[in-house]
């Protein structure tokens, strides 16, 4: 174990796989000498000569070229600086990368990691603060990874790179500086396995990325009020570890879903649907979603605070169930 930040852990995951496999390369805007807009890839350009490539402002070609390279044997880690910019390369992701295998009758594989960052809380406003994971989970053929801790960040990055399918790996701005223990040496976290970040018996809170920490804070406070909340972090939304959620519901019979993305058609809807379909008899209260409202992300910190879900809003939602 080694103490490192989430940002360092991401880098460590990339480093681990670049060392292991020369087919892995990293490309994107300012990922090289600049070290990435948030410093996540700092130094890799020197460590791996010729394998860390700065691109022009050309998201379409970044992902399009990564598809081509992946289809013929490389393993690109292609960065889109903010998840908000994926609208520019959506066709390359959802019509090319993820469909090639199926359209070609299983005769291709596209081991491509789209690395990007999401989330609010830094007054970056409507085009630099979004959480768009629901879109990605609606794309068959893609896997969606959203780590919440340094250890998960490393292990899931390594697993994403090693996966033979397109994976979108979404970091969170608020977590970059978060410290934690990270296993040294080769470390992988399997895609599709949830993590119970806090066990509990009275209510199940499902949250991911930054919201895991908000949920943990809420659970801490709720414990003082005698409510024992179990916090489940799916870590990957696709594949989704339904079993972990249903097993928790069998214990708690109550479900609160927390996400930073806007409410309507957020991934919370999918989880609610799974619970109402496959866990209906386990539930003894309405399902609750704690989410951002259906608005763009506002700039002013006052407004953004009102926009973002937080422990207060989670606690309130949980208490409405008791």
């Amino acid at each position, binding site marked *: 174990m080694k103490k490192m930040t989430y940002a360092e852990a991401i880098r460590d995951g990339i480093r681990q796989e670049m060392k292991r496999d020369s087919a892995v*390369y990293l490309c994107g805007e300012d990922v090289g000498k600049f070290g990435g807009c948030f410093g996540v890839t700092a130094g890799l350009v020197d460590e791996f000569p*010729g394998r860390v*490539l700065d*691109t*022009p402002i*050309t998201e*379409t*070609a970044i*992902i*399009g*070229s*990564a*598809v*081509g*390279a*992946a*289809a*013929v*044997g*490389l393993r*690109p880690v292609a960065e889109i600086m903010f998840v908000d910019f994926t609208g520019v390369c959506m*066709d*390359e992701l959802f*019509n*090319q990368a993820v469909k*090639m*295998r*199926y*359209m*070609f*009758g*299983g*005769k*291709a*594989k596209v*081991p491509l990691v789209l690395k990007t960052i999401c989330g609010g809380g830094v007054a970056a406003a409507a085009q630099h603060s979004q959480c768009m994971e629901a879109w990605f989970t609606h794309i*068959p*053929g893609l*896997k969606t990874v959203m780590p919440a801790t340094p250890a998960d960040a490393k292990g899931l990055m390594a697993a994403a790179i090693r*996966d*033979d*399918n397109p994976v979108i790996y979404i970091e969170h701005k608020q977590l970059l500086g978060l410290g934690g223990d990270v296993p040294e040496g080769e470390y992988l976290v399997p895609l599709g396995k949830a993590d119970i970040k806090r066990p509990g018996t009275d209510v199940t809170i499902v949250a991911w990325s930054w919201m895991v920490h908000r949920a943990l804070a809420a659970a801490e406070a709720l414990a003082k009020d005698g409510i024992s909340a179990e916090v489940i972090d799916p870590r990957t939304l696709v594949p989704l570890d339904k079993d972990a959620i249903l097993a928790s519901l069998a214990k708690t019979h109550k479900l609160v879903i927390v996400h930073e993305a806007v409410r309507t058609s957020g991934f919370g809807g999918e989880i609610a649907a799974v619970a109402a379909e496959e866990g209906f008899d386990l539930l003894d209260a309405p399902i609750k979603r704690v989410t951002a409202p259906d608005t763009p992300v506002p700039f002013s910190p006052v407004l953004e605070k009102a926009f973002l879900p937080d422990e207060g809003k989670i606690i309130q939602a949980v208490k409405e169930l008791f």
Partner: protein
Amino acid sequence: MQLAKENLLAFYQTMVTIRTFENKAAELFAAGKLPGFVHLYIGEEAVATGVCANLTAKDYITSTHRGHGHLIAKGGKVDLMMAELYGKATGYCKGKGGSMHIADVDLGILGANGIVGAGQPIAVGAAFACKYQQNGAIAVCFFGDGASNRGTFHEAMNLASIWKLPVVFVCENNMYGISNCQRDHMNICDISDRAAAYGVPGVTVDGNDVVAVFEAAAEGVKRARQGDGPSLIECKTWRWRGHFEGDPATYKNPEEQKTWLQKDPIPRLAQKIIELGHAGEADLANIADAVKAQVAAAVAFAESSPDPVPADVLTDVYAGQ
């Protein structure tokens, strides 16, 4: 450059194969045997043929919605293609792709593509892999005049240029994007002029002259293999049919259509072969007959092949599923 007899005869064989395959597909579509959209390459055979004659199976191509010609010229098997057009389990894509998505990655064919312009950055990526792996292979990107207006063209050309990648961009200017003719969709005559915007050499050739196409492509391929970076070749040609089968193409000028039919690349090549004494009419007719038989066999193969089974819908989504 004086091409050898074998080269010219090989061109002839390929072009006739494409034409025969496409005529058969038109007939089968009209008879209601082929589901979905079918876009035919009739009249444009010299482009794919002249370009792909410079490639080996290790090289890559990206194709378009109008892909049959590229696939055949790159070595695609007509029986597996035809079975795919029928949606059969024996087709190239097990019936999952259809005409617009036929691929043979082992032959370097990275797929026909239903999204206009999508192949451009994909070819750049394949070329990047060739350079990264230093394997001597290159990539060729086929795309239309219409596709040259998409942002993908711009971004792909620019990236290929600054990374000096081994890729040849081949613009098949058949003068139309569906109903929109070139003079209505861009304000320049020669699409090859767009190469200068990226510091890339561009050239325009007669796309109905297979030898001219071959030679221009040879130059581009040489540049690519030598590590001199990308190039753009515009091949002026003409789409004989409607945009897709079923389109009566009333927007085309009948006079123009007539003029272009007279520039049919196949008789032009035949005449050259005969003039050079490489073969007689009978020899060429023999080639055509053999091709006809091959295509008929492909149809028989397709028709006698099984459909996929419904459960197949769930497979091939993820590798390692």
